């Protein structure tokens, strides 16, 4: 599981389009964070989190195991255009990632919700959310 989560983090942080739009934070990392952004980080940035990890029963004995993950993403932007562009980059990053997560191999990934734009409670920032279903096997 850890290898899979690391591969998702790498997929988003090493994506050149996300990096070019979001830039780096004060620690020199692309602004793509799991669960919560760093304090005082400025938009645009990406938040992603694992909604659920479902351990499917082994198939064909114990030699073949499937792991499904539901991943929620939020593309935070200073305006609607920026947030939607970042959401598009996130989807492309998920599609293009190599998911090197030995011993796990990527079987498929697909977006399972329509992206939607939401206002923020306290600021003028805008977020576009989308959820993805990733299936790995080993």
């Amino acid at each position, binding site marked *: 599981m850890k290898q899979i989560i690391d591969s998702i983090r790498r997929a988003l942080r090493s994506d050149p389009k996300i990096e070019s739009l979001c830039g780096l934070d004060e620690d020199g990392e692309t602004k793509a964070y799991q669960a919560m952004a760093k*304090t005082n980080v400025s938009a645009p940035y990406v938040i992603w989190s694992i909604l659920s990890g479902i351990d499917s029963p082994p198939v064909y004995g114990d030699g073949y195991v499937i792991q499904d993950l*539901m991943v929620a993403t939020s593309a935070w932007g200073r305006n609607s255009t920026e947030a939607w562009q970042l959401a598009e980059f996130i989807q492309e990053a998920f599609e293009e990632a190599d998911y090197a997560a030995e011993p796990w191999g990527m079987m498929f990934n697909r977006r399972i919700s329509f992206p939607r734009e*939401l206002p923020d409670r*306290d*600021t003028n920032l805008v*977020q576009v959310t989308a959820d993805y279903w990733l299936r790995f096997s080993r």
Partner: protein
Amino acid sequence: MASVNFGTLGMPKRPGGATGSSVISKVAVYGVEECLIKLAAVNKVARIELGYLSHKSAEIIQEKAKHNIHPVTGNLETGVTIAHPAPYVWTIEASSMAGGVPEKNSYEYASFVEFGTSTTGHGYPSYGFMRRAYAETLPDIMVALKNIGEHLERL
């Protein structure tokens, strides 16, 4: 099982005539009644089982969503409701304004809990209480759908 029979049914001779005959073909489907009875049974069972599955799934997602909420005023927890807008369609809606503590219904904040707020200032992470409820229920729904399909095949 219905079957179709198609063929030529002989060439009867006319009395006194030397040549000529009519040609009769027969097309018949056997077992239509039995087939229609089975289809009606499939229709009935599918409607009952899919209707039950969709309703039950909505109830389970509703309960899981409530369970995923950390109650403060209780308005969001009691504000998770299900509705039945069309046959086989159930919706689950969370609204803090629909909660059971009306005196504390001051503004709608369900989406902020579900999707989080920005971290500029006092931000909150996304709890995803609705999406987690859906994601956790989905595998069971898929298994149930597969079982219904197998049941229908056996009819």
